[in-house]
């Protein structure tokens, strides 16, 4: 079982290598800083689906899930459970 911190670090590397976005820290606010916008959001969801093997249910999404790498990690773990 991966810990949330492990997933957070993996996500940071997904942002860097697959989206070319550098995330300074695990608790950087991705929404307020504009690092995630409507376009990167779509790409991010595709990468999450491909990397973690779950299907995103659009109706269930809340922007707050994407506030930081940690909250995304929590969302990924819930979706994979």
């Amino acid at each position, binding site marked *: 079982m991966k810990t949330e911190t492990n997933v957070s670090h993996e996500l940071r590397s997904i942002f860097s290598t697959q989206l*070319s976005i*550098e995330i300074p820290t695990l608790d950087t606010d991705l*929404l307020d800083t*504009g690092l995630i*916008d*409507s*376009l990167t959001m*779509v790409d991010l969801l595709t990468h999450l689906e491909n990397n973690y093997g779950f299907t995103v249910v*659009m109706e269930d999404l809340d*922007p707050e899930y994407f506030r930081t790498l940690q909250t995304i990690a929590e969302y990924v773990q819930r979706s994979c459970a």
Partner: protein
Amino acid sequence: MTHLLQRYATSQAATRPDAIGIIAGKRTLTYAQLEEQSNQLAHLILQSGCKRGDRVCLFLNKSPSAVVAMHAIMKADCVYVPIDISSPATRVQRIVESCRPRLILADSSAIKLLNAVLAELANNQRPVIGCMDSTAIETDECRSSFDASDLHHMKATAPDSSNGPDDPVHILFTSGSTGTPKGVVLSHRNVTHFIDWIREYLGITSDDKLSGHPPLHFDLSTLDIFTTISAGAQLHMVPAMANLLPNLMAKFIRDSELTQWLSVPSALTLMARSDAVGENDFPCLRRLIWGGETFPTPTLIHWMNRLPHVQFTNLYGPTETTIASSYYTVPKCPTDPLQKIPIGQACDGEELSVLDANLNAVPQGTQGDLYISGQGLSLEYWEDPNKSAEVFLTTGDTPSSGKIYRTGDLAYVGDDGLFYFLGRNDSQIKSRGYRIELGEIETAMNALGTLKDCAVIGVPTGGYEGTAICCAFVPETDDGVSPETLRSNASKLLPSYMIPARWLCFGSLPKTGNGKTDRRKIKELFESENTN
């Protein structure tokens, strides 16, 4: 009605004072509140030393208080300049230095940007700061001279005004090819002429509910705010979060019971792709209006099938000719996904012409340069007579002032007499509704100091992003530089919508026979990378 843009609100406040004009989440603004608060703020603006014709920058998100601020500035006979507060400070600073505002109206969401911009301004260039929150702004760099808690001390009647319809109402800064944004100066008459026409054409009444989506520095924002107010209708501001997730946007449209929805093709394509809208969804919606870029026909077909009760209207026009110059309401759902959707016919008071290099009309069906003249024609680029002279041309055989604007767009007139857009004749692109000069991005990339050479290319995707911005680069040193570092550094100079999405590293850029960068070849490389 004299042609001053602030008069619509005054007239609604007189006839329907308690009607709600603006809604943003839990915040609402009635027409009486809009009128009274903007009168009070106008007095504060005058007290802070502003004189007729002075510029006032808005460091504000689109919000009810931003609409109050715009009206107050107009009532003080000043000119408002909306600033994109998500842009990096260096870019905003160039705009502030160019328009030299006497006053900046800001709120707490822009403090960081405000500090960064003010820190770089010489003391004698520093504007007065007014805060639209009820608590003052106090930081090392700035201290607000007044805030919203001072409003109720002020007179609730409008100050005397001597502006006329041909005085400037706002300056909208757009991307400039040499790296410096250029300011389009529009008059009260330019804007009220368009608003009066579009309200009648769309049949907007006080029963309508419109979406308020584009940010203030985008000229389509003028359309939603002032069409709503001129009709005494309701403007529902789209929450920032709804921009991120198509399902939230769909819920917002349903819950607000919007009747008129103004959007851009990139957002509509994203929503279609995520299947966020059901069959016969949005029962209250009467019309969907799009502008800013080409709407791919397959996506239009998706929308028209999903929403058969809705009319679909395309608006076309550059900022320089005021919001839109032509329109086309799609008569029935296209059957062929390859069918071209026209930009239509000229709006009332405007004239579109397709001309050759000698400014002679080309025959019907022949490609040429698109020129626009008429009531919407901008006064000029702000303090830039050279750039103005390049595109605002004087000819002998056009109506009105004899001035025509060279749009840089290529077009032809079809057998149906309608205008069809073909593309650009320069390096300007449209990406996600934003108008972008690739030269501005190249200038920024070269300024990073880590590249020996670079070329920024627009590659049409046919997908949700419209045109993808692609950067081919040659690192300065053998150690190389990664796309994520370039992206991160570029974000200090460029707004996020201008940052390249795709990157290719070269030892040297491909050249043509005469030694110029081979942009066609680079574009092909990006296109083949896309399909592989």
